[in-house]
């Protein structure tokens, strides 16, 4: 903690230079798993960036017209044609789950076992409902509109290919996140982090800071969704 106080005195840049030229740790006070999560997310950012750039590239190269997003992604309710309705709900749910995750991290640092566990489960449920709605959306696109990865009745076949690939890859991230949220929640609720119970496979002691690393991943998945939303549904 003393480093933090020192940094405030000397300014952020000088503090950073001091940390990086010091021994032992470049990021003072940051646990290993949190530093690892940041580096992993940087690598994952490159994966999603490559996906999105590939999407833009094939959208430019294909010779057939690109299906209109306001037509394809619309729902018809009571005879009303409402574009982007489902996707608006999905986005709202995912952003909300980011909020509950942030609250879980805060309660985690207060070592409030029950609230942390409860909020992690709420986050997991919101994530699961997002994946569920995505499954509904995919079903609608495949069954009702006849969109396949190799072709569709509306135009460029790359539309289905990139859409299913990128949203599928993102949905996979969300699903993995939900699984780990549940695991973390179980560990919180049975007191593994209060008692520093060693992990099943790694043997490392449990710790509430793990909730924050979990949160980093979850916020990242949300952030990626914002980009996917903009590039696939609004373009």
């Amino acid at each position, binding site marked *: 903690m003393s480093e933090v106080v020192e940094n405030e005195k000397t300014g952020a840049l000088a503090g950073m230079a001091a940390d990086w030229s010091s*021994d*032992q740790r470049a990021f003072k006070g940051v646990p290993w798993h949190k530093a*690892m999560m940041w580096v992993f997310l940087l690598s*994952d950012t490159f994966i999603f960036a490559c996906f999105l750039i590939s999407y833009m*590239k094939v959208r430019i190269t294909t010779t057939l017209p690109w299906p209109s997003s306001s037509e394809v992604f619309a729902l018809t309710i009571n005879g009303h044609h409402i574009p982007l309705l489902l996707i608006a709900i999905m986005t709202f749910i995912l952003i909300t789950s980011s909020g509950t995750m942030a609250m879980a991290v805060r309660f985690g640092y207060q070592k409030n076992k029950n609230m942390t566990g409860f909020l992690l489960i709420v986050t997991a449920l919101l994530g699961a409902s997002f994946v569920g709605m995505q499954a509904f959306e995919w079903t609608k696109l495949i069954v009702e509109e006849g969109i396949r990865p190799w072709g569709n009745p509306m135009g460029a076949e790359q539309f289905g*290919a990139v859409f299913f690939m990128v949203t599928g890859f993102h949905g996979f991230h969300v699903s993995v996140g939900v699984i780990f949220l549940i695991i973390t929640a179980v560990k919180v609720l049975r007191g593994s982090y209060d008692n520093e119970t060693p992990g099943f496979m*790694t*043997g490392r002691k449990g710790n509430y800071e793990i909730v924050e690393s979990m949160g980093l991943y979850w916020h990242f998945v949300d952030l990626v969704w914002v980009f996917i939303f903009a590039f696939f549904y609004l373009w």
Partner: protein
Amino acid sequence: MSTATTHDETSYVPPAEVGEMELYHAKTWLGKYVFSQDAKVIAIQYAFTAIAIGMVALVLSLLMRLQLGFPNAFSFITPTAYYQYVTMHGMIMVVYLLTALFLGGFGNYLIPVMVGARDMVFPFLNMLSFWIYFLAVVVLVASFFVPGGPSGAGWTLYPPQAILEGTPGTEWGIILMLISLFMFIVGFTMGGLNYVITVLQARTRGMTLMRLPLTVWGIFIATILALLAFPALLVSCIMMLLDILLGTSFFMPALVSMGEQLEYGGGSPILFQHLFWFFGHPEVYIVALPAFGIVSDLLSVHARKAIFGYRMMVWAIVAIGGLSFIVWAHHMYVSGMNPYFGFFFATTTLIIAVPTALKVYNWVLTLWRGNIHLTVPMYFAIGFIFTFVNGGLTGLFLGNVTVDLPLSDTMFVVAHFHMVMAVSPVLVVFGAIYHWYPKITGRMLHDGMGMFHFWFTFIGSYAIYYPMHYLGFLGVPRRYFSLGNTDFIPASAASLNQAISIAAIIVGITQLVFIYNLVWSLFNGKKASDNPWNATTLEWQTATTPPGHGNFGKELPKVFRWAYDYSVPGADKDFIPQNEPPRS
């Protein structure tokens, strides 16, 4: 007390910020040696697997040379088989041998022990990393035994040809190749996160970043490159697998094959090339940067002299790492991309020569007036400077668009990248093994066999690759199964090819001496002391040789100085270990 002070010496070492690392102590034989969570065991597992699969790739290259030197003399080398050899040789050597050996092998062994940590920060993840890598190798090897054999698309796997009928291995080979690469990347990422975080967050007391040996710097920056470059390959693997298995058209334009219009349409083959080389060029430096780092340490130790311009060397590694991400399209000058791109990428490519040349000058200046000990590792390190300068200079030819166009896809390219990316790093690998073998096994390697190995490999490499430049100037194309009758290639090219092939076979056989040396010395080698080369870095200061689980004894070493205190005026010995406190 003399008045001479060393470069970066402090008597104060800050207190420990965190407690000791919790080590995992395996109780069973399986847990200790097979599914081990000790970075040193994982390193040896990585090295074994990488060298074993590398030997397969070496044999493949000799089979190619047999066909080129003695066309059609061996009936089992069909054109199909030849293309499969080309593909598998390239992919194995670049990814499964060099990347795995430098980062998984040397990285795992050297990083924890050089930065003064008891182990990698995530031992369990590290163990998973190796086993996923191992499975990736198994999947790759399996492609030799499936119907149609391995892919013959060339190591760059360019679509559309990589997945269209007519290319060898389109039934199964290409699918297994892509799955294997996918697994490799997943496994590597697990290890790579370990290496990065161990360097950043788990150094011992007194070990600042600017006191790290250059070996660690090289491996550290190379790992960051890998973590940012492999995603592009991962994405292209996924998209190509979808093109093959689901019939999507990411990389496939509308085309006619075997007289029939295919179902594909609208995709971009150039997109694959961009993604591939966005991975592929940093990959060159993923292999080269650890070699740069290791060779700096070898030269310094065996010349008994501080590395010249340590800070400059560190920043050159960082600069090369950064620049390597904005030069990728110099592999694509003939792909039909916009000529202005060629201008941009030629410029960045030539800029990268600046930090690289700076490193070469510093290596030479380290030798300048040093107390050079001509040990076997030193021979390999000096040999590296020669081959690297040679390969680097031809890189300037190929980096310029106008010079590249006539040389593209000729033997000149083959000669260039084998000099700079194959021979050079491999010489460093050998040097590093001769240097650290005593620490890893507790025994010295046999010097005589080592000298024999060096001279035959070094001169042999020149015998192989020098004439290849000339063949390239003649216009002899690469990747051709046979040249046939052409007006522009004189008959003498064939005899030159023969000479190259004979040299290649001799160099290939020489490697058996090296393998024999590794095994022989394990049992009969001279017992090594804890610090046979009188080196300063922490791996030589361990309590036992080889270091036990946890690397150091009861207490972690404290670091008082940088890694290069050799021949310090006024000191008792010609080296001062990093953990030796200053005399007061």
